[in-house]
C-alpha cells in the first residue's frame, strides 16, 4: 500500500444507482403491466355489474342505463353545475382547513405551551364525526353556504393538523443542531429546516384532509342545498331514481380519485429528496 491514497473523485460504487431514480418518473414495463391489470379489473367490474342488472336484481340499473342518464345530465348542464357547486365547497373548505392546520400544527409542534393549550380541543373534535356537527352548524350558522363550508373546513383541518404536528415533532434533532452550529437562529432554523423537514408529513396530512373534505361533502349538502352532487343524489332518492344516484356516486369517486392523484404528484415533486425504502 502506498502512503498516499487518492481521495479525490468518487470511489467506485458511490454514484447514484442508475435507473432507479429514472424508473420513478417514466412508465416502465412493470407500471404498464399494472395499468393493463387495472383496466382489466375495471372491465370485469362493469361486466359483473351488467350481469347482475340483467339477471334482474330488484331496481338495479345497468351500466348502459347509468351512462345514458349521465349523458342526459351532462347535456342539460345539471351535472356540470352540480359538480361545480360541490367542487367549490370542497376546495374552499379544504383550502381554509389546510391553511389553518399548517400554522396551528407548527405552533403545536414548536411550542410546548401551544401544544398543551390546543391539543385537548383537536383530540376531542377529532372523535366527533363531522356529520354530527351538522345540526349544531345549522342552528348557529343558518342554512346558507357557511355551515357546509364550515363542516368541510373542520374535517380537512382536523385531519391535517395532527399530521403537521407529527411532522414538526419528528424533525431530526441533529438537523436542527447542524443548522444552529452553522449560525442559524430560531427563525432561520424554523424556516429553513423545520418547514422543509416536515413537508412530507404536511403533504400526507393534506391528502388525508382532502379525502375527509370530500367525504364530508355529501353530508354537508344535506343542509338544504340547492345544488351539488350530494344534493342531486338526495333528490333522486326521493323519486327512487337509481340511475341518477349511480351517476352521482361515480362522479364523486372519479373526482376524488383525480384530486388525490394530483396531490400525490405534487407530493412526489416536492419531496423528491426523500430517501424511499
Amino acid at each position, binding site marked *: *500500500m*502506498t*502512503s*498516499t*491514497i487518492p*481521495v*479525490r*473523485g*468518487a*470511489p467506485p*460504487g*458511490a*454514484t*447514484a*444507482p442508475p435507473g432507479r*431514480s429514472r424508473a420513478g418518473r417514466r412508465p416502465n414495463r412493470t407500471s404498464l403491466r399494472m395499468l393493463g391489470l387495472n383496466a382489466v379489473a375495471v372491465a370485469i367490474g362493469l361486466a359483473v355489474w351488467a350481469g347482475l342488472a340483467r339477471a334482474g336484481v330488484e331496481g338495479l340499473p345497468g351500466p348502459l342505463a347509468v351512462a345514458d342518464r349521465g349523458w342526459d345530465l351532462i347535456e342539460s348542464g345539471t351535472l356540470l353545475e352540480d359538480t361545480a357547486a360541490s367542487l367549490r365547497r370542497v376546495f374552499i373548505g379544504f383550502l381554509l382547513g389546510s391553511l389553518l392546520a399548517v400554522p396551528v400544527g407548527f405552533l403545536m409542534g414548536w411550542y410546548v405551551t401551544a401544544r398543551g393549550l390546543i391539543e385537548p380541543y383537536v383530540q376531542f373534535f377529532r372523535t366527533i364525526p363531522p356529520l354530527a356537527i351538522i345540526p349544531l352548524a345549522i342552528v348557529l350558522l343558518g342554512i346558507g353556504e357557511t355551515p357546509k363550508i364550515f363542516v368541510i373546513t373542520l374535517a380537512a383541518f382536523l385531519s391535517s393538523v395532527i399530521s403537521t404536528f407529527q411532522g414538526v415533532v419528528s424533525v*431530526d434533532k*441533529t*438537523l436542527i*443542531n*447542524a*443548522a*444552529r*452550529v*452553522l*449560525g*442559524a437562529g430560531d427563525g*432561520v432554523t424554523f424556516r*429553513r*429546516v423545520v418547514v*422543509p*423537514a416536515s*413537508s412530507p408529513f404536511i403533504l400526507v396530512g393534506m391528502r388525508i384532509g382532502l379525502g375527509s373534505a370530500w367525504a364530508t361533502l355529501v353530508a354537508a349538502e344535506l343542509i338544504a342545498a340547492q345544488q351539488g352532487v350530494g344534493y342531486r343524489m338526495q333528490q333522486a332518492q326521493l323519486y327512487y331514481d337509481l340511475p341518477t344516484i349511480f351517476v352521482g356516486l361515480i362522479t364523486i369517486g372519479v373526482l376524488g380519485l383525480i384530486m388525490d392523484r394530483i396531490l400525490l404528484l405534487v407530493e412526489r415533486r416536492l419531496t*423528491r*429528496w*426523500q*430517501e424511499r425504502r
Partner: protein
Amino acid sequence: MTTKISFQQTSCAFLVNGADFLAVDRVDLDIADREVVTVVGPSGCGKSTLLNMAAGLVNPTGGQVYVDGVPVREPGPERGVIFQQYALFPWLTVRSNVEFGLTLQRGVSRAERRRRAQHFIDLVGLTDFADALPKTLSGGMRQRCAIARAYAVNPSILLMDEPFGALDALTRVQMQDQLLRAWSAEQRTIMFITHDVDEAVYLANRVVVMAARPGRIKEIIPVELPYPRTEAHRLSPEFTEIRNRVWHAVYHQALEEDRAT
C-alpha cells in the same frame, strides 16, 4: 502556545429515569490553538457530552467551557461541528448544503458564496456531485460533504463527533489522511471523538482517555510523532507502542468496570 478551548471543572448531569446521571464529572482540559486532540473511551463515558458542551449544544451543570477565554453559551459559526450521522439537509443539493452557513453570514455576496463553496467542494473531491442530492451519495461522500459544509464558514475550531464511525476501514483511512492534509493547510484546532484507538493515535497530538460512571479524564497520552503523518508512521514501532498504551488504558478500565458491576 495559547489555549483555544478550556474545560474548567466542567460537569454535566442529566435526568435519567428520574435520577441524576453524571455524564461528565469536573473535567479539566486545555486544548491549545491549532492542536489536534482526540478523545477515546467506552460508550457512556461522556465524550460526546464533552464535545457538545464545547459546541454550545449542551450547557454544563457545573464549571464552564471557555473558547478564546470567553464562556460558551450557545453554538457559534467559529466552532464547526461534524456529526456522526452526517446531518446533511436532505432537501438541499451538495452545493446548497455547503452554502448554508455562508448564506447566514452578512456581507458575503452571492458570487463570493459560490466561489467559496466550490473551493471546499473541490477540496473534498465532490466536484462532480455538486448538484446531487444527499440521497444519491455514499456514506463517505456524505461525510465529505458535511466536512465541506463545516469548513465553508471558516471555523477556527472543528469539533468532530465520531465522524468516520460509520465508514468502512479503507474509506476511513482516506478520510483521516484528507483531514490531516486540510488541517496542515488551514491549521485549525480539532477536537475529535472516536472509539477507534488507531484513529485516535494517528490523528492526535494528544489522546485523552476517558472513563465512565461518572465520565472523567483517566489519562492524557501525548503522541510524539511528527506531522505530516503517513502510512509509514502507522506501521512504526513508536506508533504501536503509543497505540498499546492507549488501548491498555481503555481496556483496563473496561475490565475494572466489569468487575465493579
